């Protein structure tokens, strides 16, 4: 696979490390319940089709990316930085 890194351009997937589903949001803070944390840590939709997932460009720019990919065809629709960059910040 080639992953279109928004920073580096299209790169071989070999440069990346995979984490998984990008949708679950960590229940932060002291009030987080065990049930909510269980859901975050363990439960997955695991869809066959369009999927938002986290990849880490470890051998490249060290950015975490949210990649939208079809799990049946592997076709990639989009790849965006997980950390939003502020518009107009670049020199």
């Amino acid at each position: 696979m080639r992953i279109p890194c928004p920073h580096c351009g299209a790169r071989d997937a070999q440069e990346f490390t995979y984490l998984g589903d990008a949708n679950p949001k960590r229940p932060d803070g002291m009030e987080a319940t065990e049930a909510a944390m269980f859901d975050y840590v363990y439960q997955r939709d695991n869809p066959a089709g369009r999927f938002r997932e986290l990849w880490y460009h470890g051998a490249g720019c060290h950015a975490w990316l949210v990649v939208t990919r079809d799990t049946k065809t592997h076709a990639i629709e989009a790849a965006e930085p997980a950390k939003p960059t502020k518009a107009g910040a670049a020199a």
Partner: protein
Amino acid sequence: MSSQPFRLSAGGLIDRTQAQSFRFDGKRYEGYAGDTLASALLANGVRLVGRSFKYHRPRGILSAGAEEPNALVELRAGARREPNTRATVAELYHGLEARSQNRWPSLAFDLLSVNSLFGAGLVAGFYYKTFMWPAAFWEKLYEPLIRRAAGLGRAAPHEDPDHYEKAFAFCDVLVIGGGPAGLAAALAAGRSGARVILCDEDFRLGGALLAEKREIDGRPAAEWLAATLAELASLPDVTIMPRSTVYGVYDHGIYGVVERVNDHLPVPPVHQPRQRAWRINAKRAILAAGAIERPIVFAGNDTPGVMLAGAVRAYVNRYAVLPGREAVVFTSSDDGWATMRDLAAAGAKVAAIVDPRVEIDAGLMALASRIGAQVFAGSVVSSASGGRALDRVTIRDASGREQSIACDLLAVSNGWNPTLHLTSHQNSRPVWDEAIHAFVPGQMPAGLSVAGSAAGRFSLAQALADGARQGTEAAIDCGFAAKAELPPRKTDPEGIALSPVWRVKGGKGKAFVDFQNDVTDKDVELAAREGFKPVEHLKRYTTLGMATDQGKTSNIAGLAIMAELTAKTIPETGTTIFRPPYTPVAIGALGGHHRGRDFRPTRLAPTHQWSQDQGAVFVESGAWMRAQYYPKAGETDWLTTVNREVLAVRNGVGLCDVSTLGKIDIQGADAAEILERVYINGWKALPVGKARYGLMLREDGFVMDDGTTSRLGETHFLMTTTTANAGKVMQHLEFCHQVLWPSLDIRMVSVSEQWAQAAIAGPKARAVLQGVIDPQHDISNEAFPYLAAREITVGGGIPARLFRISFSGELAYELAVPADYGDAMMRALMAAGEPHGICAYGTEALGVMRIEKGHVAGNELSGQTTARDLGLGKMMSSKKDFIGRVMAKREALVEAERPSLIGFKAVDPSQRLRAGAHFIAIGKPATMENDEGYMTSVAYSPNLKHWMGLGLLKNGASRIGERIRAVDPVRNGDIEVEICSPVFVDPEGTRLHV
């Protein structure tokens, strides 16, 4: 020496000035440059080339290409032996050595051909129905017999002496196949300025044009070929790769290609690889791989001398070899008649042409008449016979009357299958095209299109037009302004009409569908009878199409017969999917450079040379090589050395490289905040200039890593990680920063490589260190107490970092200097320590001392332990959220029963402990139910003069003083141990603070 009796006196694309002698089964022959092994064997009249897989039937040469199922040989000898090499694609070279395989004692007389006699019992799947009694006989008797009989060639007995490479390439347009369609495509795309790579598996470009006598624009096709190749060579961004097979299509335009760089030479030239495995990244690709001719299933169709009609033309026209002198042609298509023509032109006698069709084109009839071939229209060949060499065929007409004709060659044509294998590598099934009686590509992988015969457009004119059009389109897709190519060229007429016949029933003898796996039409019938009707069941039950050729010549007939048996059409019956690779690929090529010591990179500390100079024995520690211990002259075993090193540290001073620990520089306004969130303990109150031990969990509540982190400034920390987890922790921190909490101001970078770091440990450590650091720095206990961390200088101004931390439990420091000075630092410390008896120590001694102190390390940080398990539960802050906090509170993780860390010593101090032993109560049987935990780490303590261990034991902390058994059945160990404090030496920690 043989005189090549079947070599034509003129013609062909061989170089008659370069004779090449070779050996087959020990006998010497001669061929020419430009031959394949198959063509050279045929030139010498060798037809029996191998024995089949199951019945050990004599087999010859069926094809002239990659689809060959029969003519498999062992090429080369010794460590370079290559089993199952297709003689039809093995390029001849001077000194080539080949042997037939799967026969004993010899090819002509193979004892296992008795299998043929028992053949009636050895039908598809017979083994599922027998060999079940008695049960123990399978491994001992039946299976070894089957295994010895099966298999084909013999693998090389030694390490492959050649080397391999991987390589990466990028292009706009990849053209797969260098026949007319592919060349036209490459030329069209290349002229537009696109970056083009053209791969062809053959050593000579031209594809079908090499095998055929064709004309383009009224001139011999060879002229067009030469002009096209010349123009392609002149285009700077066109790369031609002969001897290169595109074996697989992978996601997003990645194509796997194996280039046989030097397989045409006896031995690769020095510095050159045998083969190179390419990953080609192409924006667009055009498959122009041509087509593969189909045989017909009839009795004795595997007899040496029965060949594909197109292959016969290739041998005659390209190699100037006559595959037989008296030929019969059996064809269901007009195309087969061209073989009659070319054979006759080359001087062979064509005794008969047999065509199941009743209506034959008048022109073809006239041609046959001119040649003198007897035409059997509406007839079939019902059997071929001759055993080791064809001697006659039986022809049956529509009324069933049979007649026998002597011949030594039977050329068979049943139409062609597009070579569409690559199109199904992404699981797309080919679809049936009734007009051409063949499967054509189904849904295409993104970016791939198919041209010419591979798309089922079989004529030369179509191939040229298709290639030019698709080459143009592909270039346009890549953003090049390509002009439409010139209109297709005129070609001479050719016949492609076809009415295939899949099998001829009722002949005498076995009729083969899959030659290599010895699958007959009867096997297909049996599969149908037993319900293995879906094509995948047919394949798996009969092994049809599972041989090294992946059924290139056989699948279609198998399907057709199954369709007939189940009264379905071929498309209703379906087809299996071709898997990568298209043709088998050497494992060595795909491994490339990465074998032996180059399997994975080796990381060396900046102090490595110094350790080497000290005589260190090194040990693999993840990617690193670390000094394990430093033997001195006269020390005969490692334990003696390690004991000396430990005692030296505890009683004096020692020096150890710790450069391999991960070091992460963390800066930013929220630097302390991120530590709060990833470590279980608190960080905000840590003063500048101090270090603290930290423990981090995974989100599921189990321990991830530990280390010491120092505050270098208000917003500046230096985190250390274990050697093993440095990369993982960095990735985790980036995840926390970028994904979980992107608004935090944290700036992190690994500085692991920048710093060489040494531990100086022992009561005399300060004295030694004093001699190395610049004098203005006060490191007295008062000025630089335990856990102090400071930036200092050494060697007259070299920046350094000094930490008063200790893994050994002694007065100890870790000194870090820029890596260029790592070597100098070690030498300076050794020099300064010499008066104090300083001793270099390695990871073994380090391990002994950390066990003496009850510190956890890799064996305890197994990913299966919690902070509580390790006795570190109290570190967990209740005042803040941190990764793993919630899940660590789950009921099973806080049970009192959970095994927790504790110390052990043998009741009999002379006994040795073993890591991995399990704990069983004294008097109870050693069973899983009674398992109370296990020993994680052990070492011999030269201070205590006995072995000691750390382990995880149920209710461990509350059982000090009890005795228990440490059982170790895999090493026949079963000893009594006493449960004790995990801190064996200096439990009060007074040595740390001196």
